[in-house]
């Protein structure tokens, strides 16, 4: 096996381990705060944990044996078409709202949402900043009005007092 192939197969293995790692971490956190529970409250989660870990192990064995059904192989191996799993753009879509929601109390919801839509367009490609800003305002204003005045959502006003 060439170096390139080894790197590729190591990368695929790491990728295959991503979700099991997330699930196992969640299971550990779950168990950590459930030690004090009674038998009645514990039996169902314990059975579920055993099944989750078994199924994850089974999925890993299937992968290591190279016994992956074709449909799944397509889904899992779409690096060329779907881009690498660690590519920046999708993760920026997570980071941007996280940062802006943290600033809701300072900026106020309305300006933060305008920045969200404007920033979202910038993540892809900012062809015309002015047009992007106009699109952001045009989309946010009616959405905000529907939630604020029709659905009576309560939004923080921020330092500008717009909320």
């Amino acid at each position, binding site marked *: 096996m060439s170096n390139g192939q080894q790197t590729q197969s190591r990368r695929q293995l790491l990728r295959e381990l991503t979700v099991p790692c997330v699930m196992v971490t969640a*299971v550990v*956190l779950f168990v950590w705060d459930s030690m004090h529970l009674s038998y009645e409250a514990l039996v169902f989660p314990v059975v*579920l944990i055993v099944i989750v870990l078994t199924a994850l192990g089974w999925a890993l064995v299937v992968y290591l044996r190279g016994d992956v059904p074709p449909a*799944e192989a397509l889904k899992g191996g779409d690096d060329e078409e779907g881009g690498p799993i660690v590519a920046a753009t999708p993760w920026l879509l997570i980071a941007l709202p996280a940062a802006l929601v943290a600033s809701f109390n300072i900026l106020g919801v309305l300006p933060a*949402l305008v920045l*969200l*839509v404007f920033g979202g367009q910038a993540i892809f490609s900012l062809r015309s900043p002015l047009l992007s800003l106009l699109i952001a305002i045009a989309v946010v204003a009616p959405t*905000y009005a529907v939630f604020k005045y029709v659905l009576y959502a309560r939004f923080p006003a921020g330092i500008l007092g717009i909320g």
Partner: protein
Amino acid sequence: MDTLIHMQQGFINAAQWQALLMMILGTLIGTFAGIIPGLSSGMSVALFLPLTFTMTPLHGIIFLISIYVSVGYGGALTAILLNTPGSPQNAVTTLDGFELTKQGRAAEALGYSISSSVYGGLVSYVAMLLSIGFVATVALKFGPPEMFLVAIAGVTVLGAVGTASVAKTVASGVFGLLIGTIGIVPTGEWRATYGEPYLAEGLPIIPVLIGMFVFSELMLMAFREYVIDSTITVKRSLRDIFRGFSLPAWTLPAFLRSTGLGVIVGLLPAAGGTAASFASYSLARKMSKRSEEYGKGSVEGVIASESANNACSGGDIMTTLVLGVPGSATTGILLGALTMHGLQAGPNFVAQQQTLVYGIIAAAIISQVFMVAAAVFAAYSLSGTLSVPTRILVPILVLFSVIGAYASRNAAFDVYLMLVCGAVGYLMKRTGYSPAAVVMGVILSPIADNELIRMFQLYGSDWYLAFVTRPIAACILALLVATLVWSAIGRFSARKQRVWHTQGGIAE
């Protein structure tokens, strides 16, 4: 007699202008969402769920059901015109629909797809209207063991009928069940909440739904420049569309078989429209006298696929309302909407809220008229080039996701939870796991958990014997085991066939 009065009242409620307005809005949104590949019915319903906060339960559910059903119509249009199914349940329609487009018969194919969808949907809703009372009476005999098994079946069947890896689907579904147990247990204890008051009532369903269904898909869209990218243009013809409304007599057996199969598949928890359309297409091809036409532009193929996936929705909604167990991931969201309005679906719900239940069914029937209008309009106007740039669409959907998650409880916590679910859903989709199974698990978990604890209280240390000593529970258990064994045998033989073909190929 009482039933007839409730039925009549249901139809009156569904015919009021507010209800009709919700149908029109839901239909327009659903048809539009169906046209956009990547916006599945589950994703669309989850995205618009927050808009129903202040509506009455009837209007809210009518709005969401109209979206759910019309997504299938919209999805068929792009499947036929652009070879791009708008949602997974329309994937089979591309096989013959797009071939018909290439032969210059696009408008006719659109007509067949719209009419078979409407007729299939109508048959299934009328069947639901006539049988829901009886089914609910049977379901009233269900106790904690039966309800526990039905809830577990919802997740397990997903693994059995799904097309992806069984191990990964089971891991996803059971993981959903596990995180769904977070919160205050019926015994009064706090389970895995880390003292966080926002988690006291369990994982809030709206952020989980929006994250797993919508946000994960938006992250996937980041790699595409256009949602649909096609330069295919076809002839616009209203006359051809309407010509497809009278199904040819020779297609009737295929239509009836597919509709029947769709209703039955819809009744199975977690099976859904995609399984129905695949199964019915395969059945229709096997039994057709013109099987050689399938895949080359068969009218029967389009009718089989579209009638089955729409007929499925009646059974799907009935399972959800009668058992409180979603027939598919999308009806799982409808179940969440009912809970949000303080209603608990299940046998008692159908018995106690008959007017509401019949109102929902009546709305599903009436809304077919609007769906035909919306579908014909969309089919006519779409018969040209369509392209949606992701740089515009994705930020707008991110906005809806954020504001929808926030507004459910006015809590930033819910937005962060939605983002975490979105990230996990994205990783799951990229590695073959099933976010839909996680959502099913989260929704079904409180039912299974509460019923199991009730079993402990009722049967003491011999609780597990109730699964075999109670006849209905034993039947459900036997059916569940049979489904799993049947699925395992099917997969095993498919694998053997694959190995055989591979070896044959090498030998040649």
